[in-house]
């Protein structure tokens, strides 16, 4: 991983106005710098492994945030820590299947999604993620960052008392971005993994009886 850490103090000065950027639009200056720097295939493999860890971290936070048996302090901390994993401006798009078979989609900023998850109107919430996650290969974008998608499956159950009143299985497609960030303490720039937008879609039950 040492190879990944790149000392380029001069570049730090050139990275400006980061806060004004979005994932679909970056300053040409920054894009030009990043396109010049490439990760080796070995580095990318390391990041792919780290992606699984990041996704695990996120899913653990989701479980804690939703769990009404956990102390509120711990749930708040999990919410805060979960947000740190994300690229600024990331959204969660949720699609649900209505009783008439049509699909309803709604997108919310990640902050709002996590806040809502904490306040769901159930007395008890059980969230479970499958152990497996599929992570696609990373592809370099025109901004020099690397992009991939991780797919995970979540089982959700909402209780009122001892009774399950709502349950669903959703597939979550999590955008993964490897971006170069500055460590102000060491005056270094290094590649870091962020989670981006998430598309959550309810998995449809089979017609087979």
């Amino acid at each position, binding site marked *: 991983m040492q190879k990944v850490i790149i000392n380029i103090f001069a570049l730090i000065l050139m990275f400006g106005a980061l806060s004004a950027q979005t994932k679909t639009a970056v300053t040409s200056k920054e894009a030009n710098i990043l396109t010049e720097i490439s990760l080796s295939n070995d580095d990318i493999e390391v990041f792919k492994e780290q992606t699984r860890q990041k996704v695990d971290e996120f899913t653990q936070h989701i479980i804690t945030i939703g769990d009404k048996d956990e102390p509120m302090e711990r749930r708040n901390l999990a919410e805060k820590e979960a947000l740190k994993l994300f690229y600024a401006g990331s959204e969660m798009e949720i699609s649900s299947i209505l009783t008439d078979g049509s699909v309803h989609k709604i997108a919310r900023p990640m902050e709002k999604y996590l806040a809502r998850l904490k306040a769901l109107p159930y007395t008890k919430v059980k969230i479970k993620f*499958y152990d497996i996650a599929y992570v*696609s290969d990373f592809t370099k974008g025109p901004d020099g960052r690397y992009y991939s998608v991780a797919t995970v*499956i979540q089982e959700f159950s909402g209780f009122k008392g001892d009774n399950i009143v709502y349950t669903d299985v959703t597939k979550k497609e999590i955008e993964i971005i490897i971006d170069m960030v500055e460590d102000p303490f060491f005056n270094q720039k290094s590649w870091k993994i962020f989670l981006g937008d998430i598309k959550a879609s309810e*998995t*449809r039950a089979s017609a*087979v*009886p």
Partner: protein
Amino acid sequence: MNTLKLFFISFFLQVVSLHNLNAQELSLHNNNEEIFTYRVKQISEFIDRFNYKFDEEFKEVLDNENITLAREEAIYALFDLEDPRFNIENIHSAEYATLVSNFVSHCIENKQYIDKSSEYIIANATVEATLNDKPVDFTIELQQENVAPDMLKWVINDVHGELFNVFNEDSTILRFLPPSSDELDFMELRRALKDIDYLDQYTHKSFEYSPLSVMLYLINQGILEVQSIMDVTYIIEDLPGWQITVKDCNRNMRNSGWLITDLKKTSLTP
């Protein structure tokens, strides 16, 4: 006929080994993880499996079940096996089955693989939008563009939908501005530009109406607002002579996820 027979044998092998375990799987909730492993979860995984490349978890499940998946079977398993055309009782089955069989044989014999970064992978995104606050839907066609040898982006290629079919065709009436128009300070223009369904007929002969430009204009002016992307279908023409349609078959069985829902022979060569 031999080809057809071979196909059905192969198909039934698929049914036994990969598909028809659904009933027991569905009764066992904890087998969902297994279904998830079989599911073609992303379009990139679809291409990997087509190219006979499996991720470690899928390999592990196959090993555990003592399944050796030949490339031929791996490609068959990428078809939507719930397609009624795979039902033997369906009168159209034989035709489609032969086509599928020929396609799979062609891919195996000619070592055909899909290039993940191909510009011949077209994504059709169905969009829900509002036009002057009234709901409309249309399709945005996107394709990958190579920015540099190792860099990609998706770009909007075209747009399709009733909303953009603004001009009518009419060969019974000749519409034009007469040669004398200039001397009248083009006073005919006012009348011509009220002929709203045929405006294009007053333009120069090489004019091409561009729905994409219209979409961009309408969005820019705040008249059209995209609300959400409802679904995406991929048209892959990266395999010479063939066009495959890939859709997300969202269901709780092994044969699910991004699967081939249609296959056509084409004259196109990438």
